[in-house]
């Protein structure tokens, strides 16, 4: 059933849909960034589509992607866009699901926000911004949600080391205190 939704989408927006795919019983449509709002509005308002419920919004960072058992052309290189933002939608009435994937380059990590269409994406887009640094244009309140404001960097990017802490507070008498420079002499 979702396959029909995918075909209808491809038929309605032939220029916006870069390609479609059906993998592991998921229906995926790759959408161009500039046409995202138009496509999303149509998906929500069209009675045959009726995608009224949002599921999730996340981002994939392809920096280290070197798939085993696949030709080297599928490995990531500098010419390909670094991020892919995924939106999964579902329909309560029609019971079909679709995933929209939008490729976002690293030098211009912006995307139109879908928070007006589906309120759940408000917080989910904040989370994607917090973790990956993708800016959503038109978002009502884009700020960090999981991490604190003083945090520098976007931790889920592949080039952020896992154990790089940025502590806010430490005890004064800790022998090794990252918040204070090492003294030459200890009492």
């Amino acid at each position, binding site marked *: 059933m979702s396959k029909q939704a995918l075909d209808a989408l491809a038929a309605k927006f032939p220029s916006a849909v870069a390609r479609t795919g059906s993998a592991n019983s998921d229906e995926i449509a790759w959408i161009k960034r500039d046409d995202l709002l138009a496509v999303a509005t149509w998906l929500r308002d069209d009675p045959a589509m009726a995608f009224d419920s949002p599921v999730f919004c996340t981002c994939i960072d392809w920096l280290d992607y070197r798939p085993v058992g696949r030709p080297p052309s599928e490995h990531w290189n500098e010419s390909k866009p670094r991020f892919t933002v995924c939106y999964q939608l579902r329909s309560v009435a029609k019971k079909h699901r679709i995933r929209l994937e939008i490729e976002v380059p690293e030098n211009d990590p912006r995307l139109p926000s879908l928070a007006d269409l589906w309120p759940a994406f408000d917080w989910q887009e904040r989370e994607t911004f917090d973790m990956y640094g993708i800016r959503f244009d038109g978002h009502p309140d884009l700020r960090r949600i999981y991490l604190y404001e003083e945090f520098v960097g976007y*931790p889920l990017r592949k080039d*952020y080391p*896992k154990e*790089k*802490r*940025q502590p*806010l*507070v*430490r*005890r004064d008498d800790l022998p090794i205190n990252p918040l204070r420079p090492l003294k030459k002499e200890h009492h």
Partner: protein
Amino acid sequence: MGLELSTTRLEDAAKWAKQSKLARIPEWGRKFSLFTYPFVTACCGMEFMSVAAPKYDIARFGAEFPRFSPRQSDLLMIVGTITEKQGPALKRVYDQMAEPKWVIAFGVCASTGGFYQNYHAMPGADQVIPVDVYIPGCPPRPEQVLDALILLMDRIQDGRGHSQLRLKRDAMIAAQEAQTGDE
């Protein structure tokens, strides 16, 4: 004699933690009437609820009533993972408690960070506040928690909790200065 007063390390404290017979009575009272502040963050909270529940009753040790205000409690139980974002809140809660106060790090996340070694989970709550008893386990069985509580109660009776030693050390420094002031 030169007292090693610049530290509250428990090994050094054994020298001057001996109590008179009279001092044992308030400590006995304190250990059997602990008011816990359960600083619950994560999964260990479920085991904390089980410890307070009828089967592994914590009330038989006198520590039943959680006081949800730091001003009214004396045992801070750090239950669950402490993250960097939570650090200032934890420090503030600890500072608001009145002396003498004790801290139990409940669970391995609060003790050393557990198996979370990443940019947000703090490697143990003792990076921020001094901890008296550590309970390993993910989550610890309720029997482990009760064992730790008994251990803490022994510490309280001997006067060797961090806060009690700090108070004692401050009293001794004041006494020493008064003595040198007289001379």
